[in-house]
């Protein structure tokens, strides 16, 4: 059995990666809303993904407010695709669960 990427395997992080795989980049508020997460939850999980180099974060100022944008990196996209391929292989019975 191949090693499962634990950073993506966790459900919230998987959802963040799935969203970013579609939209490429998104901001904190949209991501929080679309995935129904709390501020703290999103911050913790996005930090883990950033640490692994799967996403990058950019903070800008809109007026007096900070706007945080998350972007999937090429490494993140590759890891997400590999994870999906892994899941499909398990479901097709190619890899023993």
């Amino acid at each position, binding site marked *: 059995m191949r090693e499962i990427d634990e950073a993506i395997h966790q459900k919230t992080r998987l959802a963040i990666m799935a969203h970013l*795989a579609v939209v490429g980049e998104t*901001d904190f508020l949209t991501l929080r809303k679309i995935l129904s997460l709390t501020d703290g939850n999103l911050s913790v999980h996005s930090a883990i993904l950033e640490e692994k180099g799967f996403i990058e974060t950019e903070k800008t100022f809109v007026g007096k407010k900070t706007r945080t944008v998350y972007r999937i990196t090429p490494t993140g996209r590759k890891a997400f695709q590999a994870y999906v391929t*892994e899941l499909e292989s398990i*479901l097709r019975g190619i890899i023993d669960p």
Partner: protein
Amino acid sequence: MKKSQAEEDIQIIREVMERSARYTHFSGLSGVLSGILALIGCAITYWVNFNISELQQNNWYALTWSSVLIAAIAEDLMLAQRNAQKNGGSIWVPATYQVMKAIFPGVFVAFVISLTAMLEGALDAIPGVWALGYGAALCAAGMFTVKEVWVYGIIQLITGSASLLVLSQPAIIPREIVPIISFSQLALSFGIYQIVFGLWMTRKYRK
């Protein structure tokens, strides 16, 4: 990883990806405003019919309705952007490009056919063609957004088809009422329907 866990993960990915790909920046208020703009366009069209020489009517129609179209697109983009900004986001997300690609064929076909109809002097057919093109565009856009858009597209397709089929029956429809039918359908499809649809969307989605 167990097979059941893999199934659960695939389900999460599928649900999130489907949700993320949906266009949610539509604005009900924009529908109401474009309906009002279309009714102003209808009023100008009506006035042109009785006050401008036939030779110049084509230019007036083209000017009036391209202005209505440009104003409607501009206010729709502004309101959609405002909706997106409320959530701290931008309107220019992949779902927006998908919707734009989806509506293009319907709009393009309606443009070409109505241009041809105009050059052939078949002005009464144009509102029906527009409703068909708009209906096709809405049905295509409905694949990437809320289901009401698809339903509204079907209503436009039915109205446009009915208008063109009725107008193509010279044996039944007296010549003098043809422009009235055509004009009424124009006001119905792009004025009344738009306003009702906009109000419905505003009420349901609070946008």
